[in-house]
């Protein structure tokens, strides 16, 4: 590369290397040490000891399981709902511009505010959800966020709500790629709406659908703020996502090395799952 190009690239490259690539590698190294916060003795290499401890840490694996349930439970319904909304927004409906603008409002809100908002909705006394249930004569409602059985489903609904705009916009982008003439030709040939969707629309949006689903799985598995605000992982750890677990381990108990090991396991498992997901999807391409 010529000198001029280096001059243009370095201002961004150096911070990325120093504050992103470097720390990530450092973080992986920390997983093999006994690093702790506020300790006076020097940090030592302990090899795979953190990982061996993790293997027997049932609390961590429980949190991991919750993380997977949460990630899949949010991503799948969100995809279906967003696909429906994107198909609607792609129609020539009146006030479409307004609907498009409103549909991305959750995107603009701080995650903390989203959490606060839904705490108000779920509030057992002053919340609108229980009030609606009482109005419909369906009983007294309940304390959604602190019930052992309802807490995880309740936060999953919030997760679905919060991620709707990104998924919808991505799918809408894919829909603009659908060849209109093909759609009309299929309609002339008497293909029904479902058939047209399967043979014309779906093939056109498949690449976008795959990438946004993969990204959503990653983002959701690694998410933190929403659940931190809604339940802080409670009741009894029922909503303690892996990120909340690792955060507490690192910044409440000061176990930096151990928490870093958790981060490594999270990356490893997510990569394997994604590889399986993408490989399966790409091979199944002809049938879809």
């Amino acid at each position, binding site marked *: *590369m010529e000198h001029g*190009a280096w001059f*243009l*690239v370095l*201002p*961004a*490259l150096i*911070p*990325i290397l120093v*504050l*992103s*690539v470097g*720390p*990530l590698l450092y*973080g992986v190294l*920390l997983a093999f040490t006994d690093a702790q916060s506020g300790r006076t003795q020097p940090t030592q290499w302990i090899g795979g000891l953190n990982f061996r401890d993790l293997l027997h840490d049932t609390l961590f694996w429980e949190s991991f399981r919750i993380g997977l349930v949460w990630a899949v439970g949010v991503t799948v319904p969100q995809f279906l709902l967003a696909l429906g*909304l994107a198909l*609607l927004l792609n129609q020539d*409906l009146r006030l479409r511009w307004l*609907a*498009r*603008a409103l*549909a*991305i*409002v959750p995107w*603009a*809100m*701080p*995650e*903390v*505010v*989203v959490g*606060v*908002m*839904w705490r*108000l*909705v779920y*509030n057992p*006394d*002053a919340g*609108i959800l229980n009030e609606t249930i009482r109005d419909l004569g369906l009983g007294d409602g309940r304390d959604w966020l602190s019930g052992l059985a309802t807490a995880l489903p309740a936060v999953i609904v919030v997760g679905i*709500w919060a991620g709707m705009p990104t998924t919808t*916009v991505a799918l809408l982008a*894919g829909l603009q*790629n659908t060849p209109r003439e093909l759609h009309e030709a299929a*309609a002339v040939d008497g293909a029904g709406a479902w058939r047209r969707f399967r043979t014309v629309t779906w093939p056109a949006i498949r*690449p976008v659908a795959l990438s946004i689903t993969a990204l959503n799985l990653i983002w959701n*598995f*690694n998410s*933190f*703020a929403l659940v*931190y605000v809604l339940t802080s992982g409670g009741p009894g750890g029922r909503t303690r996502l892996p*990120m909340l677990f690792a*955060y507490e381990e*690192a910044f409440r108990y000061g176990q930096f090395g151990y*928490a*870093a090991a958790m*981060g490594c396991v999270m*990356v490893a498992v*997510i990569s394997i799952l994604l590889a399986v997901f993408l490989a399966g999807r790409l091979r199944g391409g002809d049938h879809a």
Partner: protein
Amino acid sequence: MRTSRTGRAGQYLALLAYLLFLAFPFLWLVSTAFKPPRELGSLHPTWIPKDPTLANFRQAFDEQPLLHAALNSLVAALGAALIAVLLATPMAYVMARRRTPLARAATGWVVVSQAFPLVLLIIPLFLVLKNLRLINSVPGLVMVYVVWALPFALWMLVGYVRAVPAELEEAAAVDGAGRLRTLVSVTAPLLAPGIVATALFAFVTAWNEFFFALVLLKTPEKQTLPVVLTHFIGAEGVADLGPLAAAAFLATLPSLVVFAVIQRRITGGMLAGAVKS
């Protein structure tokens, strides 16, 4: 395409259902923010406050240093947005115009960096910033935000640069304009709207960010709005719901305004990006 009358009506109904689902939590937040404590305590809360009041806002400002937190948020978000765009624009230009291995590696990194859980990044950053005495300081947070915003800033900007035809630059070069002159007088004006959109997007993302701020900022006078908001939560009685809602409502307004301005550009930008890939 022709759609039957009932089909059309069904579509409008479905759209209405979606919009209600997306809007109702926010409407409830606004409603709660303007309700007096008596109504919040009532067993039959209503959508529209019977006796709307601003008392919750006053109480919110009394209980927590909201103005100071907003100032911290503003400094962090503005700093992050300006620096990130300043650093990213030249690199995005090179990535868009040349197929070098470095550009490809950078694009790869943008994707890979999305997959890493933030714990793996924050622990080392925490240790590094502690050594630099930049823990519990807004400039330290700005540094983290800049690096965190760089990947998507690059991604957005590369799309905008590609939208500027390279032929225009070549034409300017043929007319005898130097390289720098071409960049300044031909490319930059065409790129300006894209740069502004990217900066605003980075601003909103930093304004809304919570995790890094929670870990890095320890004392109330340094904390940003989202962190201060969480101080309202906890052992909240029904009476504290009002101030909580009021503060949350205020914290959202700047993001909403900025988003309203760039809404078209974001959807448009993503549309353009998808067509390219």
